[in-house]
């Protein structure tokens, strides 16, 4: 019971990922959707590092590094797009922004 194994980390990572997924599903504001995406990326980082530690393999950490790089560039481009959208529509709500009827 007092031993923390890889399954503890994996279950925690799954919980955090599903929290992020719930956020992506129920949020209507684009900035909040970005926050939920960051939660999901962080959860996956924990899983990669835990599995890499379990197998004595540095590849898990390498993939976590590349995920961090992807997240950083995603934030840079995404926030630029958000600023453009906010200048155009004056709101970040998906119901206001959406132009397709369906």
């Amino acid at each position, binding site marked *: 019971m007092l031993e*923390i194994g890889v399954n503890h980390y994996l279950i925690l990572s799954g919980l955090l990922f599903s*929290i992020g997924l719930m956020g992506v599903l129920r949020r209507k504001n684009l*900035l909040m959707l970005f926050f939920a995406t960051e939660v999901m990326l962080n959860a996956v980082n924990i899983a990669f590092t835990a599995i890499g530690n379990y197998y004595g393999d540095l590849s898990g950490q390498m993939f976590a590094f590349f995920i961090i790089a992807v997240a950083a560039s995603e*934030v840079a481009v995404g926030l630029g797009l958000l600023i453009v959208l906010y200048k155009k529509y004056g709101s970040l709500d998906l119901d206001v922004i959406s132009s397709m009827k369906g």
Partner: protein
Amino acid sequence: MYEFIAFYVFAIATTILFLITVMSKNVLYAMSALAGGMVMISGFFFLLGADFLGVVQLIVYVGAVMALYAFAMMFFDATKDIKEKHQNPSLVFLLGGLMSLLFVVMFSAPIIGDNVQALYPVVENVGVVENVGNAQAVGMVLFTKYLIPFEVAALMLLVAMIAGIILAGKKMDYSLTKCEAIDEEMDIEAITENEKGEA
């Protein structure tokens, strides 16, 4: 014993902070909770022996990404509460709960299928120096096995930087000061032409 206490403290703190991030109506609260949760996540990396990754998490996520979010929030109205219209909350919670269960099972499945082999074990693969720290080992693997992905990531960051500059600074082409300067020049030219015509 210490690992046990640390793991549960970090786990409970991270879960609560991320729940605040996902459920909160205020952008400022959500962002602060997200930053706090990312600090707590770096604790897991230190627990797992990935010191360099923990430091990178602190610097890049908590330092750079959250600062970028805070900077972008200056363009939006951050003090006002967000009003979100949910059409069917109970269906969302049902589907979300089912997906949570599915994902937790999927993430813990590697424990059951215990026949995966390590591709690049930590010290044996590097094999140069005994008792290298995590940062040295990461450097040796990153600049040998993962050199090309590393360079591609660098190129991707460059592209993202250019895209961010172009997207956020799109209106800088026709600023007010520049137009006024051009107007003044045109006025002066018109006046001088008039004077020439009179002479």
